[in-house]
Each structure stands twice: as C-alpha cells, then as structure tokens.
C-alpha cells in the first residue's frame, strides 16, 4: 500500500500532540465532570505566552515549556479557587452552568489576548523551524519531532504521577467513583484544584507546542478543542493510554483519508465529528470500554 510508512509516522507524531491537548480536557472532566470550554482559550494563551517568552527573552520555545507548565498549573488552581469552586454543584453530575461559565472565561481570555497582543497573526521562527530529518525514508520536520518528544515525555511524567503519587491515585479514584473516593477520605476540594491545575497546565503546554508548528491569532484553538472532544470520547477519560489510543485513532483517520482516498481534505473535520457522534452513541465508554465489554463477553462464553 502506497505510503503506509508515511501515514504511520505522520500519525504517530500528530497523535503525541493531540494526546497532550486531550488529556487536559480529560482530567478536568474526569474529576469534576466539567466540560472545560475555556480549554481552547488556555491553549491559545499558552501559544502566546511561549511567543512572548521567545520574542522578549529569546527563550527557546521548547525550553519555555518548562516555565509555561508550572505557570499555567498555578493559573489553573487560581481559576478554580476564585471561580470554578463557587459553582453550585449538582451532586457530581455535569452541569450546563459549568459549561457556560467556562465559555465566559474563554471569551475573557480571548479579549485579553486581543488587548495584549492585538489580532495580528504571529508565529515563532527559530533556527530549526524549517529544518527536517529523514526518518525511515520519510521526511519529518524538526519541530514536529521535538513536539512529539515533549508530548511523550510529559505523558510519561503524567503516568508516573498518576500511578506512583498519592495525588495521582486520588485523581484516578475520583474519576472512577467520586462518592467512594470521598468515603475513602480523599479531600475533594484539594483534588479538584489539583486536577484543574493539571488540566490547565497540559492545555498551556499543548498551546506552547502548537505555537512552534503553526501561525496563530487570538481566535486560535477552536478546531483543536473540537478534536480534543473527539479524542476523549474515543479514548475514555480514565487513563493516559486510553487518551493516547484515541489520539492515535484520530490521527490515523485524518492522515489515512488524505493519502488513500480522494475525499477533499476540507471534509476532514466532518469526518472527525461524524466519528465523534458514532463513538458517543455506539460506545460511550470509549474504545477501552468497548474492549472491556468484548473481553467480558468472551469470558462469559
């Protein structure tokens, strides 16, 4: 088949970034059942912050991620403490209020960006932006490779945190069953704050990475937000591997369609959303849920 290697490598590289983007959304939803529409705005801010660090202090965008991550973690916790925590909770189920509240935050963030950086298109040009290397015969841009490396690294760190630290275990516990976790003595408020901070940090880092690849304006982020939805539905929200799997499926679909069919690429988005819809209806627990169900069925037989 023509270009299998091309599709695999491009998809893998894209999936890393997608997974980082999606995880930020997943952790907030998993712990607090809040659909964070401000995620797009945070990614956009992450991109602009990286850009400012680059133009003001000549800090390499990838190094600046080390600044962006803790900065946005703090910002997320602050946002949670001042605004999100005050939301009237409806017994652990997601509310439309949280959705609209965070949409409001997104609008405010956009306005902030317009005022600070104007609506001009910006981009980051470093000495290695235009360079590329050959990977197994496939030409790959250096920034894309670095982004994948950074994504893989951050997801590995995340896996470590989730499985080896108390915070991580508490986050997973609340995601699986909030009430049981509370009974087990988990401090819901602290965990929620940490989860929000974590989600925001990931969004900021994803935005920073996006800024090395593409040009951006304050309107940036919406299409990525919708892709992130797709991924968390496909991959479920319980594990990093689930999100990574969902990201890979989406990336494979996008690249595969472009190479092996003649469907215009403008339809790409429609395909992703159709996939989202089908996934929601057919297997709402995501692919991991589907596999578990299949495994269970086989075990019963």
């Amino acid at each position, binding site marked *: 088949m023509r270009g299998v290697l091309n599709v695999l490598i491009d998809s893998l590289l894209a999936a890393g970034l997608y997974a980082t983007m999606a995880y930020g959304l997943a952790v907030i939803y998993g712990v607090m059942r809040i659909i964070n529409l401000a995620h797009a705005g945070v990614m956009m801010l992450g991109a602009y912050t990286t850009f400012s660090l680059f133009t003001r202090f000549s800090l390499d965008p990838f190094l600046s991620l080390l600044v962006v991550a803790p900065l946005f973690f703090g910002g997320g916790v602050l946002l949670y403490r001042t605004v999100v925590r005050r939301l009237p909770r409806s017994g652990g189920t997601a509310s439309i209020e949280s959705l609209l509240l965070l949409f409001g935050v997104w609008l405010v963030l956009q306005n902030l960006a317009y005022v600070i950086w104007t*609506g001009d298109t910006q981009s980051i040009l470093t000495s290695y932006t235009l360079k*590329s290397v050959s990977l197994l015969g496939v030409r790959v841009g250096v920034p894309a490779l670095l982004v994948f490396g950074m994504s893989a690294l951050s997801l590995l760190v995340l896996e470590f945190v989730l499985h080896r630290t108390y915070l991580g275990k508490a986050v997973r516990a609340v995601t699986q069953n909030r009430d049981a976790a509370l009974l087990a003595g988990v401090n819901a408020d602290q965990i929620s704050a940490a989860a929000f901070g974590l989600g925001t940090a990931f969004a900021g880092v994803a935005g920073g990475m996006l800024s090395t690849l*593409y040009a951006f*304006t304050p309107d940036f982020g919406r299409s990525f937000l919708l892709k992130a939805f797709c991924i968390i539905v496909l991959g479920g929200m319980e594990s990093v591997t689930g999100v990574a799997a969902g990201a890979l499926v989406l990336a494979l679909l996008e690249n595969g369609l472009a190479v092996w069919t003649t469907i215009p690429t403008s339809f790409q988005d429609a395909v992703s959303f159709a996939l989202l819809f089908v996934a929601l209806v057919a297997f709402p627990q995501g692919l991991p849920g589907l596999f578990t169900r299949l495994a269970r069925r086989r075990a019963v037989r």
Partner: protein
Amino acid sequence: MKSTRPSCTLLVLASALLAASPTLAQDVIRIGAVLPVTGKESKIGGAFKAATEYAVKEVNDAGGLDVGGKKLKIDLSLLDDTSDASRSAQLVEQLMAQQKVHAVIGGYGSQLVQAQSVVPDRYGIPYISGGAGATSIYGRSKWVFGVLSPVENLATTQMDFLSDLVAQGKLKKPLKIALLAENTEHGKDFQKGVKDYAKAHPGYSVVLDESFELYAADFKPLLGRVAAAKADLFMCDAHLEDFISMQRTYTQMGLYHQMLTYGARGADEAGRKGLGAATDYIFASGWWSDLLPYPQVKAFAAKWKAASGSAPQWYHATAYEAVRALFAAIRKAGSLKPEAIRAALAAIELRDSILPGGVLKFTKTGQAVLPFVVTQNKPGGKVDIVWPKEARTGEPVAPMPKP
C-alpha cells in the same frame, strides 16, 4: 403573577431605550464605515481602519472637503462588525437608517462585503469598498462600487507572467499545475482564473485542484497529495496564517516546484518574519506594491511612513484610495445628494491614482478593473516587481533554485 411585573417593567424600559435615536449633526459630511476591527479578519481590518481614518484626517486637517463652494468637515462613524457577516449587514443598516450617513465605506473580506452589499439598494446610499475583489458582489446594485479588481484577473496576470517566462525560455512547456485554494469566494475566483487560462492556452494542465478550510493549520495531508501529483508549478491562494503554516510544512517536507505562488501573499512583511528564507523566490500578484514607480506612490509611501512608522502594505493603499475616490466624487458632485454622489462615482476618472495603471475608474458593474502587479521575493528580504514589464525593478528568477 406578581413576580412577572418586574420583568414586564424591564421590558418596557428596554423598549424605550431601543426607541431612543441619536440627534443628527448638521453641516458635516456624515460618512459611515463598518470594518472587521476584531475577529478573524482583524489584522487587515485594523489596517483598513487606520488607512480610512488617515484619509479622513488628511482632508479634515486641510479644512474639510469642498462641496459646492462650502468647505465641510467629515464626520466618520467607524463601527466594528467583529468579522461577523450578519452583524456587518446590521451595522450598515444602522448607519444608513438611523445615522443617515451620506455614504458608506465598505469592509474587508468577501463574505462580509457580500452581506453588506445587499443593503445600499434599500436606502439608495452610495457604498464603496476597498476590500473585496469577488466579482459576484458587483453588478447587482448601482449603488455598490469596489476599488479592488477581480480576483480572477489576479490569477490570469500570474499566468500571463508565467507565459512570458516560457517565451523567454526560462520555463519549458508542458507545465503541470498543482492548484490549491482556500474555501472562500476569493479562493474560488482564483481557481477559476487559473483553470480557465489553462483551458484556453495549450501546454498548461491542472493536475491537482483542491480547496481547504481557512485556518486549517495542519497541511501535512494536503501537501502529501501535492507531492504525489508531481507537478511543475504550485499555485495556492491562502490567508496569511495558512500561508505561513503551509509554507513551513512545504519546506520541511522538502517539496520543490519550478515556480511557487500563494496568490497575493509572499511579499507581506509578516510572511517574511514568519518564514525567513523560506519565502525566497516566491512570486505573488497583488493589487498594489509600494515599489510602483509612480511619483504619487512614492509620495504616499513617504507620508504613510511618516505618519505610522512603517511602510504601507497593499491594503493600506486600497483602503486609502477608496476613501479618496469617494471624496473626489463628492467634490465633483458639488452636493451631498445620494444620486449626485453615485453618478459622480460611476463617471469618475482619478488620474493621480496610486493604483497600478495610475488611473482609477469603475466599470459598468461598479468594480474597478485595473492591472495587477507581480512581485518576486529575492534573498536578503528584497522584493522586486517583475510584471508588468514597464514597472519592472528586477529580473525574474525562474525556475526557482533548488533548496
């Protein structure tokens, strides 16, 4: 029951607020403008705003505009449509219906101008736009004028330039073209221009013809198709953001074509900033360049640089010229009556125009059809005009050197 009373009171109060109308100032020329100052088109929308305000200030600083012997100041109402088409149309209606402007300066962007352009007919008020070249906007209403020449001509001018290179022996036919365009009116007109030319002229064939969504960001899959098409020329019509993202991916993928163009993009400063050496040898055609060898262009570039601190881009020039054409028409009409202004605009011949060709006049459809310039980027941040031949400031380099 009782609790609905407050909501009713609120409703009545609000209706009163809506019914309040502003008082009209006399003895001024009321000009309205609706531009995308924020939102998707904000970059050029903001530039249009600056140029429009500059043009108005220039006239007001000189004492005002001479209308039938009296010098009147210009009162500019500039509104932001946030790049939303329905809001754009609503604001134009508001300017025409409530503020009773004498003329409206249109916005930037084919979709926004399309939405706006249905309104002037209802009120019989002249409307002129420096920001939309789509042909389908013009010819429907006698009140709508446009300074930008049709986008199809942008494409055919590029093709004429390429044909000249073939005549000079720099390129050899047959030439296969990979054609991409953004999914907008502008992009579609560009595609039509190229395809019609290829059909009419032997030796050109379009081997790939695709549209992409605005601000799509990830162009890897699409450029993969371009690579597979193995074309000789790559022609693409895109907005600045997409131009930067696409050309980056193009360079990283190591793609090569004998000639490369992004429609009107390429010579933009912002493009050079975002792509560095990757913009070298890209050719572009546009509605204006500050390198045009007319004295009025040099004068405009100088005073713009003095006023704003940077060199004028094409959108500053077309916006400025649209306002200037409107003012010239008002002066010629000698009155503020809408029909008089409209008739003056339809018949106008601005002989010291900064636009290519040096003369601005409108065709029967209300759109100006003027020559385009083709520029080519040279290494070291230099830009040369390579077409039309009379305006040439440097030799075109074809085919592009391999990276």
